C-alpha cells in the first residue's frame, strides 16, 4: 500500500510515496538518488548503509521508511558541505585510511556523530563506536588513527 511519508532529508522537507515497509536505504538510493549510502549486506551486519536518524547513527537497511515519518534523516550527501566532513575526509586521507572506499561513507557517518558528541574520544571509545562498521581492506588501525587525528584538529568543526 503506497502512502505519502513526509520526513526531513538532509535538512529539506521531502515526501516519499512508497509502501511504508520499504527499506529506508532503497528509498534514499532511488527515488532520491542518494547513492552514497551503500548496501554491503542488507542484514544490519556491516554498517555500510549507516545514516543519521535524529542525529544518531542508524542502519538504513534495517529501517523501514515508515519509521522515519516526521524525523530528520542525514546521509553522507548531507554532510558533504559541513566542516566536520571536511575535517574527517582530510584525516582519512592523511592517515591512509581509505582503500576500496565502499565502507567509507558509513564510517564517516559514525565518526561524525562520535566527534560531535565526544570532542576527545580515546582509542577505546573510537574502536567501540566503529564496532558495527566492517572494513575488509584496512585492518581498522589507520581508520582509528584518522579519527583520532580529526579529533585533535577538531577546533570548532562542530
Amino acid at each position, binding site marked *: *500500500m503506497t*502512502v505519502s511519508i513526509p520526513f526531513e532529508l538532509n535538512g529539506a522537507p521531502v515526501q516519499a510515496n512508497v*509502501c*511504508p*515497509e*520499504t*527499506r529506508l536505504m532503497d528509498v534514499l538510493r532511488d527515488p532520491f538518488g542518494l547513492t552514497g549510502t551503500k548496501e554491503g549486506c*542488507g*542484514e*544490519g*551486519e556491516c*554498517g555500510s548503509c*549507516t545514516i543519521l*536518524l535524529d542525529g*544518531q*547513527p*542508524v*542502519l538504513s*537497511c*534495517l*529501517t*523501514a521508511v*515508515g*519509521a522515519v*515519518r*516526521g*524525523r530528520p534523516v542525514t546521509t553522507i550527501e548531507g554532510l558533504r558541505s559541513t566542516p566536520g566532513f571536511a575535517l574527517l575526509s582530510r584525516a582519512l586521507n592523511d592517515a591512509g585510511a581509505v582503500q576500496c572506499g565502499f565502507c567509507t561513507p558509513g564510517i564517516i557517518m*559514525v565518526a561524525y556523530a562520535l566527534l560531535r558528541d565526544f570532542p576527545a574520544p580515546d582509542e577505546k571509545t573510537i574502536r*567501540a*563506536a566503529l*564496532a*558495527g*562498521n566492517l572494513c575488509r581492506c584496512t585492518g581498522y588501525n589507520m581508520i582509528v588513527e584518522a579519527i583520532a587525528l580529526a579529533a585533535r584538529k577538531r577546533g570548532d568543526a562542530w
Partner: protein
Amino acid sequence: MVAGITFCPETIQTAARAKADGGILYAGGTDIMLRHAQSIRTGQSVPFIFLNAVTELKRVVVGGSKTRIGAMLTMSEIARSPDMPDLLRRACSTVGSPALRSTATLGGNICTASPAGDSLPALYVLEALVELRSPTKTRLIPIDSFISGPKETVLATDELLAAVIIPDNNLKRFHHRKVSPRTANAITKVSIAAAATIEDGIMKDIRLAFGAVGPTVIRCASLEEELRDMPTEGLAGTISYWKRRVEKLIEPIDDLRSTAQYRRITASGLFQEFMNTITRQGEG
C-alpha cells in the same frame, strides 16, 4: 494485503487495534526487517504498524518500589540511563552494534523471544514483569511466563507489550557476561546474568540465568534454592558440585554457531567466574 490499517498510531489502543486487524508491530525494526526481508524485497510485505509515535511507550517511571520502562526504549537509551538497573544496562550494552542499539528496543528484544536475546537473562534475574495491553484490557505477567518457547510468547493477537516493570530488590552484586564469536557485534553463544547478596558470610540471596543454552532463557531456581543461606566460605571447595548442577540444568544444543559441549562447559565456567568474583569481594 490488509487495507486501511493505521500505519502510524499515536495511542496504544489504536496500535493494538491495528495489530488485531492483521498488521505487524514495528518497534525498532532491527528484527522485523530481517524476518520479513524476503517479502519486503518482493513487495509482498504485510503492513507494519510503526510504534515510534506512541509517546506513552517511551515513558520511564521510577518509584512505588518499581521501575516501569516503556517498551520502546532503545538499547542505547537503557544502556546510558542511570535510572535503569545496572544489570539491565550492562546486558543492553552488549546487543549488536552501536547503530543497531540506537534503534533496537527493549520491547522488541523481549517479543522476539530468542533464547539468545541479550536483555532476557538480566530480565529473568530481575524478575521483570511485562505489561500487556489490548484495546480493552491490561495484564501483568512475569517475563518467564510471557516467553513460552523459542520465538514464542503468550501475546494475544490484539495485545502489545507496553512496558517492562522491574520490582525493586535487595540484591547487591550483579554480574553479566556474554560470550560471542568476536569481541562485539555478534550473536550470543552463551551468556550469564546473575545477582547475589552476601551478609555475615551467608549467601542471603542468589539468582542465576543463562542465555542461548536452552529453548528459552534458563533460570536456575532449584540451584538458587540450594545455595540460599549457605555459608559462602565453603563454596569454593565444592565448586565442582555446583558446576555440575549448572550443567544439568541447562539444555544446550549444537548449531551453526557453537556446540552443546562448548556451551555446557562455558556456562558452568561463567558460573564459577561469578562465584569466584562474589566470594572474593566479601560482604555486600
